[in-house]
Structure formats: structure tokens, C-alpha cells
């Protein structure tokens, strides 16, 4: 693993939050990069600030303050050059941020292995899985409440919807977050890379039970997932409509 890739795994390495999807390390790399860039400025500014306070403190020796109005170029450059440098670093951050944003939110990788529909409602997540055929809105779709089952390393598209108020679909380990809006269907993607059980949070306050709008994402190996699909595929091939969507608690 190269040095830059290592940086993207920093928060995983220190045990704060796992890397669980194909783009999680891209976001973490951006965060580390911003930390380094602004960190240098921040530490420099605070050090100079504290140094000035100590050096120019009135020590009772009768020394007068200097008279500097900041109008001549020799003085002004101490403001001008740093602020041009801030601009340059801003551009660096903007470029990397664009790349991450485009990869996750603008470019939709084609030919997903499965499409799922995620619906937020007060106060539960409804997951409509594609089932064995990999297609959504077919007879073998599997509906669950608060439990998302996906297969590791597969490419998923999701269609995010809301029934009543705003919700926000967030799986921190995947670094994914998108608001769900009633009346719209928002498409996005993710590709899990780590098996296990992970929290699904609602990240937008949605009323009284916002706290208990908790879900779990189960990322399974191919065999485990096939077994789950086989065990949960509806026996009859009923056409899914809004009526047979399981209602919330």
C-alpha cells in the first residue's frame, strides 16, 4: 500500500471508524489532506499569535508600542502573501474535493449487480431488495424492515425515497449519506468491501422517534447472502405494490 493510500486508511488504522466501502478511503484521504493543509496554517497562526503576545507584552519597562498603520507595501506584504497562499491551498482542496464528489455523487457506475429501494418513514427504514434476479420491482423482491442485506464486493444502486418527512440514509462505515425526500426518488450507489454488521442511522431529524430510527446493514459473503436470499424469497410471485409493503412498527 502506497503512502497516499495509507493516509486514506488513517482513521481505520487508529480504530476510530472502519473502511467499509469502495469509496470510504477516498473520503478519508480528503479529510486527512484537509487536516494536513489547514493544520499547518492553524498551528503556524496560533504559534505566531502566542509568540507575539509573549514578546510584545508590556513588561513595565516603559517601552512604547510601535506606530505601524499597515499602509506601506513593506508591511502589507505580511498580509498579502499569506492570503494568496491560503487561496492556493483552497484550490488544492477544491480539486481533490471535486474528484471525490464526482466519484460518489455524480458518476453512477453502470451495470449494478443489484438495485435496492430504501424508503424512510416515521420511524423505520424499509428495504426492498432485488432478490435472486438482480432486478427491482419483480416478483422475487425481498422486503425487510430496518435490516439491509447485501453481498460483499458487489455493486449496488439504491433508490432512496421517503413517505412522510425528510430522512437521511447514513451508513458511517460506508461513508454514505443522502437525504430522502418525499415525492422524489434519488439514485445513488455503493460497493461494500467489509463483511459484518454495521449501523444504519437516520441523519435528519424526523420527529419524535428519530432516535430509534435505527437499522443494521448486514454485509455477507456470497454463500451467506445466497442462503439468505433463498430463505427469504417470497413463495408466491405476487406483484409488489404499495399495499404489500410491510408497514412500520
Amino acid at each position, binding site marked *: 500500500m502506497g503512502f497516499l493510500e495509507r493516509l486514506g486508511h488513517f482513521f481505520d488504522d487508529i480504530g476510530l*471508524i472502519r473502511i467499509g466501502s469502495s469509496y470510504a478511503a*477516498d*473520503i478519508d484521504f*480528503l*479529510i486527512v489532506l484537509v*487536516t494536513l493543509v489547514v493544520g499547518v*496554517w492553524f498551528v503556524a*497562526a*496560533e504559534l505566531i*499569535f502566542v509568540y*507575539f503576545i509573549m514578546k*510584545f*507584552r*508590556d513588561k513595565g519597562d516603559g517601552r*512604547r508600542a*510601535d*506606530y*505601524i*498603520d*499597515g499602509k506601506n507595501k513593506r508591511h502589507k506584504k*505580511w*498580509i498579502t502573501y499569506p*492570503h494568496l497562499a*491560503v*487561496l492556493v491551498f*483552497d484550490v488544492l*482542496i*477544491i480539486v481533490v*474535493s*471535486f474528484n*471525490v*464528489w464526482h466519484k460518489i*455523487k455524480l458518476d453512477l457506475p453502470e451495470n449494478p449487480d443489484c438495485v435496492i429501494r430504501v424508503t424512510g418513514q*416515521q420511524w423505520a427504514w424499509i428495504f426492498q431488495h432485488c432478490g435472486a434476479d438482480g432486478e427491482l420491482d419483480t416478483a422475487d423482491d425481498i422486503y425487510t424492515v430496518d435490516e439491509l442485506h447485501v453481498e460483499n464486493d458487489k455493486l449496488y444502486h439504491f433508490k432512496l425515497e421517503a413517505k*412522510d*418527512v*425528510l430522512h*437521511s440514509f*447514513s451508513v*458511517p462505515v460506508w*461513508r454514505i*449519506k443522502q437525504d430522502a*425526500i*418525499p*415525492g*422524489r426518488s*434519488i439514485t445513488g450507489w455503493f460497493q461494500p468491501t467489509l463483511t459484518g*454488521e454495521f*449501523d444504519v*442511522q*437516520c*441523519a*435528519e*431529524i424526523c*420527529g*419524535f*422517534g*428519530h432516535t*430509534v430510527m*435505527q437499522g443494521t446493514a448486514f454485509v455477507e459473503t456470497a454463500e451467506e447472502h445466497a442462503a439468505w436470499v433463498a430463505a427469504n424469497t417470497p413463495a408466491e410471485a405476487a406483484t409488489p405494490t404499495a399495499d404489500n409493503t410491510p408497514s412500520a412498527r
Partner: protein
Amino acid sequence: MVEPAVDLTHGHPHDDHEHHGPQGWLKYLWSTDHKVIAMQYMFTGMFMAMVGGFMAYVFRMQLAFPGMNVPGFGMVSMGEYNALVTNHGTIMIFWVAMPVLLAAFGNFLIPLMVGTDDMVFPKINRLSFQVFFVSTIVILASLVVEGGGFAGAWTAYPPLSANETYNLTPLGSTLWVIGVGLEFVAFLLGGINFITTLMNSRAPGMRAFDVPLVVWMIVVASILFMLSVGPLLAGAIMLIFDQTIGTGFFNPATGGDPILWQHLFWFFGHPEVYVVLLPAMGVVIEIIATFARKKVFGYRIVIFTVVATGVLSFFVWAHHQFIAGIDPRMANIFTITTLLISVPIAELCFVYIATLYGGSIRLTTPMLWALAFVAEFLIGGVTGIFLGAAGADIYFHDTYFVLAHFHYTFFPIAIIGTYAAFTYWFPKMFGKMMDDRLGKWHFWLTIIPFNMIFIPLFVLGMGGQHRRISNYSGFSELARDGFQDIRVFATVSLLIMLLAQLIFFYNCWKTWRSGPKAGKNPWKANSLEWTTESPPPHGNWHPDEMPVVHRGPYEFSVPGREDDYWPQNEPPRRDS
């Protein structure tokens, strides 16, 4: 702009308002004196700060010890928790930061600093406070009505805020919107006075660039407020209609759009950050110049930078909505504008630091607060870069990282900035000197716990903890022991910080009882408010002693002068 301003009120006998008005306590209720109105705003704001601080105490206790019986409140239900965080945010911004920094200090300082006897429209000024007072009663009432206070976050996103079947607080949510709307009206009325008084009532000889920076900043903040609040006021009325008479402006089922509210709210909401930031930055530069005995480094740079920040602040609002379902291509534009705004803000910080260079710094209590503002606000500024970069915001949005970030901006503004201003102008407002030793204890016991509250919360945010959730025990990744320890640590720090405020109140009480007299100019500062008595009489100066201005406000340590300060009104020597 550089011609001496025409003064409408100078030298006229000051008789008509007040002297024939009501007497006794009614005098204060109906007073048009800008200093009395300033005190009314200040004490209302401080009272509301206690209300908002109590709310923080209750929900931090719930987070540290879920399900506990919080002393003074009781068990915190999920709905009550939501109402507490909602109204903590609403009150701290609209009923603490704005009335204290903008209205109280704007009212107190502008006429004194530009050398006039009162605001241009004293009765509009009085109306402003009266409307504000009504709004305060409305927001407090909204907390105790049937169903409880509004619980849809201070951003009040519909459809949750628009429909009582979703928010379960039919009265609380409507009163909340009405209260906020009235508050906006109050500040529009106040802003008219700030702008017109600066433009029309400056003392003879005071040119535009002789005006102290804090006055400039309060006036620019008022202009920002007036330009940004209109759309939200319209939005608030639409929201009230949605709540009460069944319209569907924000309801997708009837062709409305919930995202519309977010645009209206943040088009106001982001400039609002600068509405409260600028007065605090102005206060801080006044104090730094006085106690460093230094001329401000680049007075005009500061003004132009502030105006540039104000203009830019109208083009960054959608950075609150990167993942809200707006067209993802918009994020590119708003990432650029958001990161660009870091340039003028960084420049202001550089100017403040540069002003210290070569100074003769006296670390009085107000100076400690002012310096702490710069040091702490820098943290708020640099953490904003993470959130302005849309790629990183995918992860950070609505986490505790955001929460810690904006508390590192709003706490320096509303609390540190206020204490800086309060301790600096206390001698002028009340005529007595506060105890410096108690002031320093209060300072350190506020600043250290403040950092101990919010630095841990950055870590929780990085760990994926979202906001506005009353109990994390249901999330396996967030219920870890280490994380719960962090929550307890932050809560204990908050308790220490809240207790430390008792030192401040004791200091005020002690000073009020037995503090030494301040005299006209205890800090040896230059601006005009220090040329009159402490506290200033009605009309600010005796009619035949109205000040005339000869120079800018920051002529400290001028070579060749015996004193290291040079008041704005002191006539130049004949031979110079």
C-alpha cells in the same frame, strides 16, 4: 463619503422625549434613550442565555447518563430531547447572540461612538425592543403549551415542521415560527436606526474612515440582515399557512417542495452567521487596539474585507444542502464559493495578529477575552474548510463534527465576544471598575472547560455520531465504552463551565455594590464614548460639550506625543 457628515441633532436642546413622559419604572419601559434600550436588550438576552444554557445542561446530562432523572428537570423523553435541542439552538442564536451583540452593543455604542445624542429614530428604536420583547414571550410560551415546544430542529425543515401529524406539536411549532418572525421584525426596525445613525449623525469632522471599526461592522451586519431576511420572512409566513390553514407550499403531495424552505432558510441562515460574527469581530479589534496600544493594522483593509465577506456570504448558502437532494452539480459551485470565503476571514485573522506586532500588550480581562476570541475562532474557521469541501461533507454532514465546528464559531461570537465587550464597556455602562482578579478566574474557568466540551465532540463526529439523537445505546458502533466516556467528559466539562458563570454574576454584584469609580476614560482609549461621563447622561454629552472629531480612532503611541493615546476629539496642537 469623506465630507463631514451633516448632523441633524447636534446642539439642539434635548428636551422633548422622556422628560415629559412616564415616571418611575414605566420610564424604563417607554424610554427612547438608546442606552436604556441597549440595557433592555442586554438583560433580556442574558436571561435567555440562562434559559438556553439550562437546556444544554439537561440534554448533555441525558447524553452522558441516558435515562437518568436530571436534577431540576426530570426524565428526558425523546420528544422533550428534540424540543430541548431545537430551542437551545433557536434561543442561543436569535435571543442571545443577536440581541446582545447586535442590538445591545449596537444601541449602546453607535450613538456614543459617532458622537451624537441618540439614534436618528428613537421611537422606532423603542418599538424595536417592544416587538422583540413580545417575541421573547411568544418563544417562551411555545415551550409550555399543550404538546410541548417545537421539536423539529432550529432549521425547521418541512414537512416535519409544516404538519402537526408529523411533529406532534401543533401549538409549539406555530408559536415557534411566529416568535422567530416577530424577532426578525424587531431587528429590521433596529437595523434602520443603526444604518441611518451612522450615515447622518456623525459628529462634525468625523469622516467615514474615522468611524471605529465596531460601528462599521455592526452596520454592515445590519445591512446583511436586512438583505437576507426578506425571503425567510416570506418563507415563515408560508410555513405558518401550511401549518394552520392547510396550504401546501412545502408539501410535495400538493405540488409544493420541501427543499424550497431549505433554500429560503439558508439564504438567510448563512449571512446570519456573519450578522453575529461581524459585531464580535468589531468588538475584538477595538479591544486589541486599545490594550496593545497599537493602531489597527490596515484599517481600510479591514473594512473592504468585511464588505467582501458580506457580499460573498450571499453565495454560499447551499453548502448546508450538499446532500439534501439538490442537483449534485450545484455542489461544485458552492464548494468554490465556500472555500473562497475563507480568504477574507483568514485575512481578518491575519490583520488582528499583525496588530499585536510591536505592541505594548496589557493582559486585562477584556484583552484576554478578545485574544481568546481570535485563538478559538481560528479553530472554528479551519474546521469549516472540512465541511465546505463537498466530498468530505458527505461524511461529516449532520454529525457532531458539524456541531463542534459551529460551536467553535458561535461560542467565541456569542459568549467570548459578549464577555469581551461587557468587561470592556462595563465601566462606561455602569461607571464602576470590575474586579480584574475575579474576571481572570472567570475567564480561565470558562475557556478551558469550553475546549474540553467541544474538542472531544470533534472525535465523536469523526467516529460517525449523528446529531439530535437522544440515546446512542441502540447503535453498536456508537455505544462503545470509549465513546460513552467521551460523552461523560464533555458533560462534566459543561457543568464546570456553567458553574464558573457564578463568578461572573458575583463579580457584577460586587462591583455594583462596592466597585471603584471608573472615571471618564479608564482604559485610555481614543473613541468618543470615552470622552463623556461614566455612565453617560441622557443625551450623552452636555449640549454645549458635543464632541468634534479631529482624527481616526486608533492613534495610539503616535511618535512625538507624550501620551500613548490621542482621543478623537482632542484639538490638534497649534504648532503641528
